[in-house]
């Protein structure tokens, strides 16, 4: 492999990794605060992609308006999902919540099939993002530059909210101890609603960027991004927002390089991700940036 092909592959890896990272941020945030693995996160991504298609094609809204609108709507949809699927189980054992999350995921996928049908749709990608820059023979899609920038911007925004605002303080408190937080007079339901709103809008951002890169939207499109983002989150240290971004990039680069260096291994690409998951859980369950596990009561 020549150096420019290698550089091209690194760019391919960053491009894919930043998408994983974007989806993983929302995943890990909801986990960090609620200790809930929201398996429906990937399906929110699918809901957002369809919403964006309809906003742009049916309502003919410009994409500059549609995309933020879809993020807000998906955020509200996430809050609704919490009300219906998770809130009634707030005091139930954690396993019930997990089962409810898997149920919510299946429900969303199958609802989408019933309402929209199983045939994939193309995504109306705005021309601005479709452009390709030729940089000394390296082909860089404009989207490949926007996605990491957007990921980092959203990361900084989220870090600001979590560490510098009052709501963020309450979120962090809730993540340490639900009961005590409630006793301190904090409206826990409101904090959880805000968490779901943020997490789901991040899923929407991920969904839109994903659909722009791979313009094929179908009811199951959220499954693989959801799984990969989950692995990225675990790899980075689940619950740790910066870790999710690092995990996403590591996973994306790893997948691309494995295909680039060992073309015969292409079909084991997903297996690579799951192997990473198993190894992390075996040898470093707290991930790259996770805090050590402490016993808390």
């Amino acid at each position, binding site marked *: *492999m*020549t150096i420019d*092909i290698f550089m*091209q*592959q690194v760019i*391919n*890896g960053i*491009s*894919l990794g930043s998408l994983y990272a974007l989806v993983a941020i929302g995943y890990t945030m909801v986990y960090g605060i609620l200790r809930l693995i929201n398996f429906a996160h990937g399906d929110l991504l699918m809901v957002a992609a369809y919403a964006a298609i309809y906003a742009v094609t049916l309502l003919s809204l410009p994409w500059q308006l549609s995309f933020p609108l879809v993020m807000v709507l998906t955020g509200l949809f996430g809050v609704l999902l919490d009300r219906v699927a998770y809130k009634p189980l707030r005091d139930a054992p954690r396993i019930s919540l997990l089962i409810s999350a898997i149920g919510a995921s299946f429900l969303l996928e199958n609802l989408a*099939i019933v309402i929209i*049908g*199983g*045939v*994939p*749709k*193309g995504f109306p990608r705005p021309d601005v993002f*479709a452009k*390709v820059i*030729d940089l000394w023979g390296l*082909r860089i*899609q404009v989207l490949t530059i926007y996605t990491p920038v957007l990921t980092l911007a959203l990361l900084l925004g989220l870090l600001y909210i979590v560490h510098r605002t009052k709501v963020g303080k309450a979120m962090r408190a809730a993540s340490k101890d639900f009961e005590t937080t409630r006793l301190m007079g904090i409206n826990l339901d409101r904090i959880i609603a805000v968490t779901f709103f943020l997490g789901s809008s991040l899923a929407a951002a991920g969904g839109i960027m994903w659909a722009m*890169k*791979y*313009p*094929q939207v179908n*009811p*199951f499109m959220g499954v*693989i991004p959801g799984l990969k983002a989950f692995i990225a989150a675990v790899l980075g240290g689940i619950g740790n927002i910066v870790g999710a971004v690092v995990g996403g990039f590591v996973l994306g680069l790893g*997948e*691309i*390089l494995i*295909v*680039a260096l060992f*073309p*015969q291994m*292409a*079909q084991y*690409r*997903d297996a690579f991700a799951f192997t990473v998951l198993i190894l992390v859980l075996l040898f470093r369950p707290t991930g790259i940036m996770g805090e050590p596990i402490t016993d808390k009561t």
Partner: protein
Amino acid sequence: MARRRWLAFVAGLCGVALALTGPVSAQETIKIGAYLPMTGAVAAYGQMEWDGIQIANEMKPTVLGKKIELVLVDTKSDKIEAANAVSRLVEKEKVVGIIGEAISGNSMAGNPISEAAKIVSVSPTATNPLVTQGKQYAFRACFIDPFQGEVAARFAVNELKAKTAAVIIDIAQDYCVGLANFFVKEFVKLGGKVVSTTYIQTGDQDFSAQLSSVQAAKPDIIYAPNYYTEDALMAKQARDLGINVPILTGDGAQAEELIKIGGKAVEGMYFTGHFHKEGATTDLAKEYIKRFEAKKGKEADAFGALGADAYFLLVEAIEKAGSTEGPKVREAMVAIKNFPGVSGLITMQDNGNPIKSMVINKVKDGKFVYVTTVNP
């Protein structure tokens, strides 16, 4: 009052029981089952074929003086679901013939079950040789992959003047692996050289790693005989990476979704296919196209045409057999010679594969256009 209501309930129950046991309409209809991917990765094939089957049923609604009743089961584009679907059609629905599946892998999962039950199945579009190999009751309405791969290789060498080719194979699909092998064999025989072989998997969305290595090999053409979703996404990413050589693929490309998803990137893509309305010759085809377009409000496509042919072949065999018994239908099926189907003249062979012609199509201005017909 309460007593009267109770009596009415019992009377009603008796009525239902009578209706269930009496000489019901099941005697007057003949059930034909279809198992097709209506959702999932290759849903577009199933939906197009189902459209074609429905039109064919409208054109020929009866056989042996009885009404034909169609029973559809969705396979969700999945091998296990496909096997379950055939079991259900055979055991629960008691069908006398089966149409399906649309793709080779799923047909290979379903066929052993209809084979064991001695029920004739006709796949509209499963092109892998193994689908019918060693089977008595498995048939298809389409040509098989060796022919398709060979024609593609000849077309690449003679028409596209290609000396080198990159092959991209969807390793998860028997169809793609088969087609790629037959292409490579013929291409090399004709003096061509394969400079890059890379693998993808159904459901993958990112092919940038594979395509970057294809680019490094600088081929004259890309042969990527995969299904439409992967074809479209791959073409898009190839063009984004600056790979502008012609892309050649198989009949799996011929779904509207290829153009909807691929947009400008699939312009100029060539593929081997079963049918193009401009190449249609038989009377049945002309009437089918007319009805299809009036009813469905879109152009008649290849998968619909093959779905219709699977139906017509099955009904023809039942009629010629004068019976719905599996072995007799089978005998009548292999005796079909020069049947004027929607996709041209079909002669069925004893091995379950028909002899028929092929067309080569191209994507131009967002449409599938007819290039030429190749006879076997």
